[in-house]
């Protein structure tokens, strides 16, 4: 399985400690950063970790699986 496949499936590597977040209605990167980091201003960390699927930090889609670094 390729790294891309693993990421799309939310990480199937048995040693992977990566955290994934499935985008829900009303989510923004800032809200997600607030939840995981306590600080919404760190949203760019999530954006940078998901550049392979995100083009714009303001555009996320419901159902997308984002890696939380």
């Amino acid at each position, binding site marked *: 399985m390729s790294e891309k496949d693993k990421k799309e499936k939310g990480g199937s*590597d*048995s*040693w*992977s*400690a990566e*955290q994934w977040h499935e985008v829900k209605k009303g989510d923004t990167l800032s809200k997600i950063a607030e939840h995981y980091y*306590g*600080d919404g201003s760190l949203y760019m960390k999530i954006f940078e970790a998901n550049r392979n699927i995100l083009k714009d930090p303001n555009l996320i889609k419901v159902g997308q699986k984002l890696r939380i670094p």
Partner: protein
Amino acid sequence: MRKIVLLSVVMIVAVGLILTGCSKVKGQADAALKAAEKAISEVKPEAEKIVPDQIKALEGTLNGAKEKFGKGDYKAALSDAQVIPGKVKDLVASMNAKKDELTKTWTDLDQGIPKMMDAIKSRVGILSQSKKLPANLTKEKFEEAKSGLDSALKDWETAKESFKGGMLGEAVAKGNTVKEKAVQVLEILGMPVPAAAKS
């Protein structure tokens, strides 16, 4: 008079035969002890690292045989020493099996632990920049996670040194300790624990 002479001759011959037999057994016991000692010394350096208890037990058997030899019990010394080379063969087979098992475990840890560490380092780095910690993490717990990470990183370096030095058993034991520490840190940080680290 003739009877006395005859009896004396018979006794001399008997004593001679006994002494010859004794000397023969002594020589056999001596050779068997040397062979046993050689067999043990050939595997000892590696066995001490992988199956220390087994090599210690064999050395105990050898020392026991030497003690019997020293006390003049050559027959018992021969009997004890003769079984040692066979036991060394068993030990080598057991050592190779253990070595394979430890190598497999180490390979698994060596591939997995850096992944856990990277994920933790990344999260700790980000949380260190955060103006406020997430709801499920207190400042004290975060400090505990950071010191746990430092400790695990140091332990991982010593585990790798043990592996490089051929101390497979020690490397795996230390690697498992690192794994446990990393799991604790992941739990503190509210991160998922990898399936492979749960076993």
